C-alpha cells in the first residue's frame, strides 16, 4: 500500500512552514544579547587609533604619553603584531596595524587597552604619529592611468603600458583584476538601433545596526577565545592565526549576537586587535566601535563608473553589448576580485545576446576599501544594463516589459561565458506577472504620503507619477572554482524521554533566519519536532560564509545530509526491531510504508543517541579565462524583478516611492515568511541606493560618517509591497531551493530610477538620485 500524498502526515514546523524564529521574541522585546552587550568581570576596553589621512607615510609613532595615562594597560603598534603583518580574504595586503604608509582615512595605526572605554580613547589621542602627508589617488580613472572616460570617442582604446605606473597605491600597480568577457564576434557586430549610456553608482554602506564588536579572552593554553559578530568564523580564524602566530586550534571563536551584516562583516575588523590586546595583557578585552567608527571599520559597496553600448535590430532584439565597468576597490583588495568576477560574468543581465564584449576592472585607490555587500557586483552592473534596456525600448518604440521579454533568457540559454543555464530561468514570466499586477491608486490625499513626506513640501503641486520595471540576475554561492562547502553535526537523542535533535554548525545567523531553517530541515528529515540549534562556533567544521545567498543552500544541504545519515542509522534499528521493510520517520512516529505506524522514534533511541557529521558541497564551478571569460563559473542563478511606482515632485526633486511590486523565483520557499522578509528587506536596501544612501567622499575623506547624514530609508520611505513568489525547483539544489537574499536588492534600484525617469523626464545617470539631479538649478528662482 502506498501512502497517497494528500494524506501524508507532516512534522509541524518543517520545510515549507513558517515557524516562529527562536530569537524573534528576544529581539523584538530588546532582550537579545548582541555582541556589543558582552561583558566579563575584570575586562579591559580596547580602542583603535586611526589615520586621519587618506594617504601618508608614517615617519614615527610615539606611544609613550599614552602608556603613562593611569588605567592604560597596553598600547600596541605594528611592531607588536606577533605574526603576519597583513591579512586579507583573497590577497593578504591589509595591515593589521599600519606600517610605513597609510592608504585610506581610518586605517588602524595603533590599539589601546584600558580599564574604561573613555580612558582608552583619551590614551589614543595621546599617541603621536608623525605623518608625511601625500596626495591621495581618489579617482579610479586616474588610478588605472587610462582615462577612457574622458575620451572624445566612444570606442575606448586598449590599456597602455603607462597604466600601472600612474600614481601607484600599491607597488605592483593599481589594477586588482581586469576581467574580459568575449562572446560571438563583438568587434564586427553592427546593429540598426544603437543606444549608449554612461552610468555611475555611488558608494553604498551596509549600514547594519549593530556595530563591530567582540570580546577576546586569553586562554590558559596560550590561546584565545573570541566572541564576535562576524559572517564566517573559520575564515576569520584562518586570518587571525597568521597574524597572531597561533595554531588554529588555539583560537576558538564563538558567534556573538549579530546585528546585521550585509557583507560588511566578511573582512576582519576588531578580531585580531582584541586578541592582541588580550594576549598581551592577560585580561579579557572588549572592543565596540561607535557608529562613526563603524563607517571606517568596514568595507563598503564598490562605486562604479560604467559605459554601455547596446545594439539591436528594429524589433529590439539584441545583437551586441559592449560594456566597460570600472569598480573602485579602495585601498586594499578585500573581495574586489570576486566582485569583478560577478560584474563581468553577469554584467549584461538576464538576456540572450549573440555578441558581447565586456571589460570589468577593479582598481586600488586611496578611498575606503570596498568589498562585499548584498548583490556583490551584480548591483552596479544591473543599474547600467537595465537603464540601457529602457533606452532601447524607447528607441524601438516598445514597452519596458516587452523589450525584456523579447530578449529574455530561459532555461537552456547560454551566458556570455559559455555556461548553459541548466535550471528554470523564468525571466519573461516574471515580467508578465509584474505587468499583470494592479496599479496603486493615484496620488494620495494624505500629504504625508506625497514626496517630502511629513515635511509638508507639497499639497500636490509639481507631483508626477511614474512607473518603472527592472530585472536582475545573481549567482548563488561562491563561484569560479571556489571549494564552497559547509559542515553540519546532527545528533538525535532522548532528552527527558522525548526525542530531540541537536544541530551544530559554524554557520552564522545574521538575522536572515538560518537558525529557523536548520531546525525546519531537521524536523522534516527526522520527524522530530524538538530541535535545538547549538551556538555557532569553531568546535565544528566550517559552515562557509553567510554571504552570496548561500547558507540555506549549502549549510541547509549539509544539515540535510547529516540528517539523512542519522535517519539511515535509525532506520537500521527499525529494521532490526520491526523486520525488513521500508520505513519513514514522521511526527515522532516510525511508519512502515506497508503497515502504517509501528512504533515511535523515542523507543528506537533507548539504545542511545545517533550522531552524524556531514561535509556538503554544491556542484563544482570553474575559473573563467582571463581574456574571454569562458568557463562554467556559477552554481546557480536567481532572478527577481521589480515594478516601482513613484511620485516625484519635479519642482523640488523629491521622491516618494508609492509602491514596489516584486516577483521572485525561489525554487522552494523553505520558510515563506522568511522569504518575504528577505524580499522586503532587500528591496528596501535597493530603494536606499536609488534615492538616498551614499558614503560621500571628498579627496578620500568621508563627509558623512553618521546616521545623521548617511540616510537609510524609514517607514515613511519604504512603501507597502506586492510580492509574488514562484517555486520552480532547481534540480541541482537541495529541495530545489534558490538563494533568496540578494536578488531583490539588485532590481529594485533600477526599477525605481526608471520610474523616476518616467515621472520627471530627466535622463538620470547616477544613483543615488539627489534632488539636484532632478531640478534645473538656478533657473526658476
Amino acid at each position: 500500500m502506498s501512502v497517497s500524498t494528500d494524506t501524508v502526515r507532516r512534522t509541524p514546523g518543517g520545510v515549507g512552514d513558517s515557524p516562529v524564529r527562536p530569537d524573534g521574541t528576544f529581539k523584538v522585546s530588546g532582550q537579545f544579547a548582541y555582541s556589543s552587550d558582552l561583558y566579563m568581570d575584570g575586562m579591559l576596553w580596547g580602542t583603535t587609533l586611526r589615520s586621519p589621512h587618506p594617504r601618508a607615510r608614517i615617519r614615527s609613532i610615539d606611544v609613550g604619553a599614552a602608556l603613562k595615562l593611569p588605567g592604560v594597560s597596553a598600547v600596541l603598534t605594528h611592531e607588536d603584531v606577533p605574526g603576519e603583518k597583513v591579512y586579507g580574504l583573497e590577497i593578504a595586503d591589509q595591515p593589521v596595524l599600519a606600517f610605513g604608509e597609510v592608504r585610506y582615512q581610518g586605517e588602524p595605526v595603533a590599539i589601546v587597552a584600558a580599564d574604561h572605554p573613555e580612558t582608552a580613547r583619551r590614551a589614543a589621542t595621546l599617541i603621536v604619529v608623525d605623518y608625511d602627508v601625500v596626495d591621495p589617488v581618489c579617482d579610479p580613472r586616474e588610478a588605472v592611468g587610462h582615462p577612457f572616460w574622458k575620451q572624445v570617442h566612444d570606442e575606448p582604446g586598449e590599456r597602455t603600458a603607462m597604466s600601472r605606473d600612474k600614481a601607484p597605491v600599491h607597488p605592483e600597480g593599481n589594477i586588482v583584476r581586469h576581467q574580459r568577457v568575449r562572446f560571438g564576434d563583438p568587434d564586427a557586430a553592427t546593429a540598426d538601433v544603437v543606444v549608449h549610456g554612461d552610468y555611475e553608482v555611488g558608494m553604498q554602506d551596509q549600514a547594519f545596526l549593530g556595530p563591530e564588536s567582540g570580546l577576546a579572552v586569553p586562554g590558559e593554553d596560550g590561546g584565545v577565545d573570541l566572541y564576535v559578530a562576524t559572517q564566517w568564523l573559520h575564515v576569520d580564524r584562518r586570518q587571525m592565526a597568521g597574524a597572531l602566530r597561533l595554531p588554529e586550534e588555539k583560537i576558538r571563536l564563538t558567534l556573538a549576537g549579530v546585528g546585521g551584516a550585509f557583507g560588511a562583516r566578511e573582512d576582519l575588523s576588531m578580531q585580531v586587535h582584541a586578541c592582541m590586546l588580550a594576549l598581551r595583557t592577560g585580561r579579557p578585552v572588549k572592543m565596540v566601535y561607535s557608529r562613526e567608527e563603524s563607517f571606517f571599520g568596514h568595507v563598503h559597496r564598490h562605486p562604479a563608473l560604467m559605459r554601455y553600448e547596446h545594439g539591436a535590430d528594429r524589433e529590439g532584439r539584441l545583437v551586441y553589448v559592449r560594456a566597460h565597468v570600472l569598480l573602485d576597490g579602495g585601498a586594499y583588495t578585500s573581495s574586489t576580485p570576486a566582485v569583478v568576477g560577478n560584474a563581468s560574468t553577469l554584467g549584461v543581465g538576464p538576456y540572450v545576446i549573440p555578441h558581447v564584449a565586456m571589460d570589468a576592472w577593479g582598481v586600488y585607490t586611496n578611498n575606503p576599501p570596498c568589498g562585499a555587500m548584498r548583490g556583490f557586483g551584480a548591483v552596479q552592473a544591473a543599474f547600467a544594463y537595465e537603464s540601457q534596456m529602457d533606452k532601447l525600448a524607447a528607441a524601438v518604440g516598445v514597452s519596458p516589459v516587452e523589450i525584456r521579454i523579447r530578449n529574455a533568457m530561459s532555461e537552456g540559454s547560454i551566458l556570455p561565458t559559455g555556461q548553459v543555464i541548466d535550471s528554470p530561468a523564468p525571466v519573461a514570466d516574471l515580467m508578465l506577472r509584474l505587468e499583470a499586477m494592479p496599479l496603486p491608486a493615484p496620488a494620495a490625499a494624505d500629504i504625508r504620503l506625497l514626496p517630502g513626506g511629513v515635511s509638508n513640501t507639497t499639497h500636490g503641486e509639481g507631483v508626477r507619477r511614474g512607473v518603472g520595471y527592472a530585472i536582475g540576475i545573481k549567482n548563488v554561492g561562491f563561484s569560479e572554482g571556489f571549494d564552497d562547502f559547509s559542515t553540519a553535526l546532527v545528533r538525535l537523542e532522548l532528552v527527558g524521554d522525548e526525542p530531540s535533535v541537536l544541530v551544530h554548525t559554524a554557520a552564522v545567523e545574521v538575522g536572515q533566519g538560518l537558525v529557523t531553517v536548520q531546525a525546519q530541515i531537521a524536523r522534516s528529515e527526522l520527524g522530530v519536532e524538538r530541535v535545538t540549534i547549538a551556538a555557532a562556533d569553531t568546535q565544528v567544521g566550517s559552515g562557509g560564509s553567510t554571504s552570496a545567498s548561500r547558507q540555506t543552500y549549502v549549510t541547509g544541504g549539509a544539515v540535510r545530509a547529516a540528517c539523512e545519515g542519522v535517519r539511515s542509522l535509525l532506520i537500521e534499528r527499525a529494521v532490526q526491531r520491526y523486520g525488513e521493510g521500508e520505513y519513514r520517520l514522521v511526527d515522532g512516529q516510525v511508519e512502515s510504508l506497508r503497515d502504517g505506524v509501528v512504533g515511535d522514534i523515542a523507543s528506537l533511541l533507548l539504545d542511545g543517541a545517533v550522531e552524524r557529521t556531514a561535509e556538503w558541497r554544491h556542484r563544482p564551478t570553474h575559473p573563467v579565462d582571463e581574456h574571454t571569460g569562458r568557463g562554467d563559473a556559477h552554481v546557480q542563478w536567481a532572478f527577481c524583478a521589480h515594478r516601482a511606482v513613484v511620485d516625484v515632485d519635479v519642482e523640488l526633486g523629491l521622491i516618494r516611492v508609492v509602491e514596489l511590486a516584486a516577483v521572485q523565483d525561489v525554487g522552494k520557499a523553505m520558510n515563506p515568511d522568511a522569504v518575504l522578509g528577505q524580499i522586503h528587506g532587500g528591496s528596501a536596501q535597493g530603494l536606499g541606493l536609488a534615492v538616498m544612501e551614499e558614503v560621500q567622499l571628498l579627496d578620500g575623506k568621508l563627509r558623512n560618517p553618521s546616521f545623521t547624514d548617511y540616510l537609510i530609508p524609514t517607514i515613511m520611505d519604504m512603501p507597502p509591497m506586492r510580492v509574488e513568489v514562484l517555486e520552480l525547483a532547481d534540480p541541482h539544489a537541495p529541495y530545489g531551493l534558490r538563494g533568496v537574499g540578494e536578488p531583490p536588492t539588485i532590481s529594485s534600484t533600477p526599477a525605481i530610477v526608471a520610474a523616476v525617469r518616467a515621472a520627471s523626464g530627466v535622463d538620470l545617470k547616477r544613483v543615488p538620485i539627489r534632488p539636484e539631479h532632478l531640478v534645473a538649478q538656478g533657473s526658476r528662482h
Partner: protein
Amino acid sequence: MEFFRPTSLSDACRLKSEHPDAVPLCGGTDVMVDINFDRHRPESLLDLTAVPELFGWSRYDGHLRIGAAMPYTAIIAELSAEAPGLAIASRTVGSPQIRNRASVGGNLGSASPAGDALPPLLAVDAEVEAISAAGTRRIPIHEFFLGPKRNALRPDELITAVHLPVARGPQQFAKVGTRNAMVIAVCSFSLALHPDAGRVGTGIGSAAPTPLPARKAETFLAGELTDRWAEPTDLSEDVVRRFGELVAAAAVPIDDVRGTAAYRRHALSVLARRTLTWTWADHIQRMGQR
C-alpha cells in the same frame, strides 16, 4: 561630571549663576548626542526636566507663553490652532521619540541654522524670555541668533519661555530633506500672514549661518497685499514668482553634504511660492466665511 537637578526655577537660576559653565539640559536630544559623540564634555549638567515652571503654556492679551521645555508632541497636540506655523514645524522634527522629549527651548539653545522651530518664530516676531539671578528679560527673536550655533544668551541665563502672538491669520512651514521623515533640513521656510497688522513675516532655515527673515520679500508682499486683506482676490503669478525670487535672494547658502547652494536657493523659491499660495488661499477662505 557634576549633575544638578533643580526642582524649582529659583534653584535652577541660582545654580546657573553659581555654575555658569553648567550645560542646561531639557530634552537632551542635542546635549546627549554631543556627549555621546565626544564632541563636548561639560564639567557639569543642569537638568531642567524637574522644573515645573518650564513646562506647559499660557495665554494672555492675545499672546502665548510657551514653556521652554514643552516638548514638540505637546505643542502639536495643544497649540495647532494658536501657533499653527510652530505646530507644523514641530511635526517635521525628528521621530516620535525625539518629539516626545525635544523642546523649543533646546532648539533655541542649540541655535542651529537647521533648527526647525526657529523659522516660524522669526515669522511671528517671537520673543525669548530669559532669566538670571539679575532678573528676567525678553530678547526679540531677530536679535537672538548671533552665528552658527551661537545665541544672545549670557552664560548665567536660562531660557524660560518663548512669547508669540496668537495666530490671527494663516501660517505655514515647509522643509526640504532628502528623506520623507527624520531628516535635517536642506532648507526650510516659514510664512505667517498678519492680516490685522497688514504685515507678513518670514523665516528661512538651513540656508545661512543663522535662521533669518527675508525682509525684502516681506516688504514686497505686504505692499502687494495692502488693499487686499479685507476683500482678497487671487494673487497674480507674477506676485507669487517675485516673492519666491526675493526669498531665494535673501538666503546665503553654501554647498555641503546635504545639498548645493544653488539647489537651496531654487528650493526656497519653490517653498516660498507654495506656502504663499496655501496661506493666501486659506485667508480667502476665512474671509469668505465671515
